[in-house]
């Protein structure tokens, strides 16, 4: 994978999609707004009134230790998990209870934690699944193979047999090829070699340049803070602190230790 210099096509395409998604809403400031979200599993509450905004065209990093509720928050935002109270607002519209599939078709793309691929489908079939949001298969294939030439070599292989890095590339291909307006990334770095993580984040920076709004969740802060415009620290189901990445960097260790 070499996120080469020839990423101009995606840059242009990404920008187009943002316009499309926001067309009906005039100039909405925040592409994603979470307003005092509370949510939990069965009787165990995980989120206790979370407020978070992802302004148009910016990259927000959400940091926090294990079990802080970051992944749950993303699931709520993507429509996989219904909040018990609070509002999820995407591009100026309240979308509580809208099925995840509809949000995906509207231009919201969550790459879930772990590998966001179907392990028993081949690489090509995985790419075919990306066409559900309305883009053509040829475009998707072209984009994915262009970004990650390794995927072309492995297109007939089942995704489960790919290496961890290759699987994450395939997962990221969805974030690129489907041209979302809002991209939610959950722990891209999980279980990957540092060099691959760096490459992936270089790609995230490129996608961001194209004007896509991005919310990145990470446990390990270093890599993300370089990419992010804003950052927030989440602890025990609450956003403890928001600010610029440089401001937060110094406070992070304290936050992890529960200070």
């Amino acid at each position: 994978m070499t996120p080469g210099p020839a990423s101009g096509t995606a840059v242009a395409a990404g920008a187009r999609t943002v316009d499309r998604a926001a067309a009906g809403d005039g100039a909405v400031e925040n592409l994603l707004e979470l307003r005092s979200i509370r949510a939990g599993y069965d009787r165990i509450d995980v989120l206790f009134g979370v407020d978070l905004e992802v302004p148009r065209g910016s990259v927000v990093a959400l940091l926090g230790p294990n079990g802080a509720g970051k992944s749950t928050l993303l699931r709520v935002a993507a429509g996989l998990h219904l909040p018990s109270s609070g509002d999820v607002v995407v591009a100026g519209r309240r979308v509580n209870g809208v099925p995840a599939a509809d949000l995906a078709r509207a231009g919201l793309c969550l790459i879930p934690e772990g590998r966001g691929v179907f392990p028993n489908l081949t690489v090509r079939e995985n790419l075919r699944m990306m066409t559900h949001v309305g883009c053509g298969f040829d475009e998707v294939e072209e984009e994915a193979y262009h970004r990650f030439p390794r995927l072309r070599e492995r297109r007939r292989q089942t995704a489960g047999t790919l290496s961890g890095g290759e699987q994450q590339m395939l997962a990221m291909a969805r974030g690129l090829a489907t041209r979302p307006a809002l991209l939610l990334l959950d722990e891209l770095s999980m279980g990957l070699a540092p060099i691959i993580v760096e490459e992936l984040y270089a790609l995230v920076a490129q996608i961001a340049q194209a004007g896509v709004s991005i919310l990145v969740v990470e446990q390990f802060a270093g890599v993300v803070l370089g990419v992010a415009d804003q950052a927030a620290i989440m602890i025990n189901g609450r956003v403890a602190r928001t600010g610029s990445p440089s401001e937060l960097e110094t406070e992070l260790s304290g936050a992890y230790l529960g200070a």
Partner: protein
Amino acid sequence: MDKFLTFTIVGLSTAAIYSVIASGLVLTYTTTGVFNFAHGAAGMLAAFCYWQFHFDWGWPTPVALVVVLLVLAPLFGVLLEMVIMRNLEGTSETTRLVVSISLLVAMIGLSVLIWKPDESRPMARFFQSSAPISVGPTTITWHQMVTLLTAVAVALGLWLVLTRMRVGIAMRAAVDDRNLTMLTGARPRRVQMLAWAIGTALAGIGGILIAPGLVLDASSLSLVIVSAYAAAIFGRLRSLPMTFVGAVVVGCAEGYLQGYLPQSPFLTGLRTAASVLILFVVLLVLPNPRLRGRIRSREFFPAPTWKGALGFAAAMVAGGVILATTLSRPDLITYGQVFSLGIVALSLVPLIGFAGQVSLCQLSFAGIGAVVMAHLGGGGNPLALLWAALIAGGVGALVALPALRLSGIYLALATASFAIVLDRWLFLLPRLSVFGLFEVSTFNQGSLSVDSLTIFGASFADPGRQMILMSVLFALAALLVVWVRRSAFGRILVAMKDSEAACATLGIDLFGTKLAVFALSAALAGVGGALYATQLGSISPGNFDFVTGLPVFMMTVVGGVGMVGAALFCTVSLYAVLPLYSALLPSIARYAVVLPGLAGLSLARNPGGAVQDVREGFLPLRTSPPAIGATVGIVAGLYLLRMLDVLGNWPFAVLLIVVPMAANAAVQGLSRPEKAEEPGADVPLEWRGIVRPWTEADRIELDQALGVNEVEIHGAT
């Protein structure tokens, strides 16, 4: 050579049918995770519908086929998905199993309801009048040709749909990761509905193709498809190509057995049981599944207390005495099965409820117990009960031995196939000498007579005395099960159900534990069967066959299989409420056949079981000793009145049900005003002591809520 070719063709055309059915099964299993035991029954209903349209009403073949296969079957599949399968997300494998078995029972019931079973319904083969095509030295009939071509078309079509069409890829994607499927913008619900529509249509094709070669009979047609299960297991329920290979193996095996098996009374049954034996063997050679870790489940059962267990046992004996003294002779015979089959149902409690191992062959173990009783219990010798326990327990351990590596549906299928092998082969054998060492006999190709028990010279031939004896034995068996649950062994069983992996790390011998619980459960079932046999007086294999055993399994699970009360729930609903219902309302008695199935389906909504609800409902009464005393007193008084013939049976029965409920309501009513008197119960907890002074009552309430003191909590909150 001609013979070989002929039977190859027979085998291949059978294989073709199995492959069509099995591929539908694999399709629905992979997309929804529900192994549909009723898949065969769907094919059976399709065959009946086709018979109705084409042969009875005379619709032309194409019209009838289109209506059944392209309209009714897919619609039925979609309906199943929407009404039932959708609710099964997040339930345990046992629950899913019970729901699909209930569906099987309900569908058999439905077909019996619509198409009276005693009529003959001949079904012609396709192009029956056309001359067969000659192929070298042998011939292929047009029906066989149609069958083979259909299978090829189905295989090609499925391959195209699943790998070339986006909706097919989405079907497979939904199996891998449902959430991710939604995130890509696909709609798994629709995909699943489509899978069920196609799967049911495939079952329909199979049913229509296979029915002309057999008798159009609901339960045999539903179970013929067990052979298709064997084919599906070849592909581990996932791989379609392997499923087709499996179908060829099973089909050809059946074909050659038909052609080459020597004529012998010992082997005739083997032919029909062959596919099931193949299923059993394939299950055993499947790669070993890994130890299961913690299983998330919404089903929890409380451990029984001795107080409760003794109360239950006393109530059972009292119930037996009351029934024995109030019912007429024919009624005693009708309802007499409640306690003996109750022991069979009870045998499921340690096995499924405690240990989490599924068995569908408990009634077969009961059958073995009954056979032992018939052969060794001459003159009502009670020692034969011991033999029944030993032999049934031994067979249980023997069955468990190979099956122990399996779990979930695989275990269910293995035990089901054992039951069917017994039904179709072993129970039908004539007297058999094993290497001249000893003789084994089962039903001796007919029915056996069984003497009623005689204990210490006291005969229990009279149905009334029998009823009392059975109730005592049932109570003892229930106490035994409670003792097992409360012993160290019981704790190991429950731990094993929760996490086999954790047990292994604790150094618990899983193998021995599973073997022991299977043997225990089979022994219990054997005793139950032996007792049932003494009540029946004459037994035949039909009393103990697989399909008859399914409702017992179902209703025990519906009752809440982790509790002893579930066994009572099962037999009371099957052998007391159903016959009573049929007696009271003969006009709609026919509909009773679908009721157990419908009850099983309710489990999808309430996996904790019915007994649990009853237990909770009666919490006020159970925790109030004076109220229990009063209730027992009133019941005793009522019984006295009944004995003095002041009361008839009906008012007595009604009062028996009403009194405990009234007592319960009364206790609840008495405890409620206390609560209302609490000062400011309306004030939220965090404001007490702020907007009004903190009181002793607040402290107690807080303690109760936190469970700090051993305070009994009265009343429902």
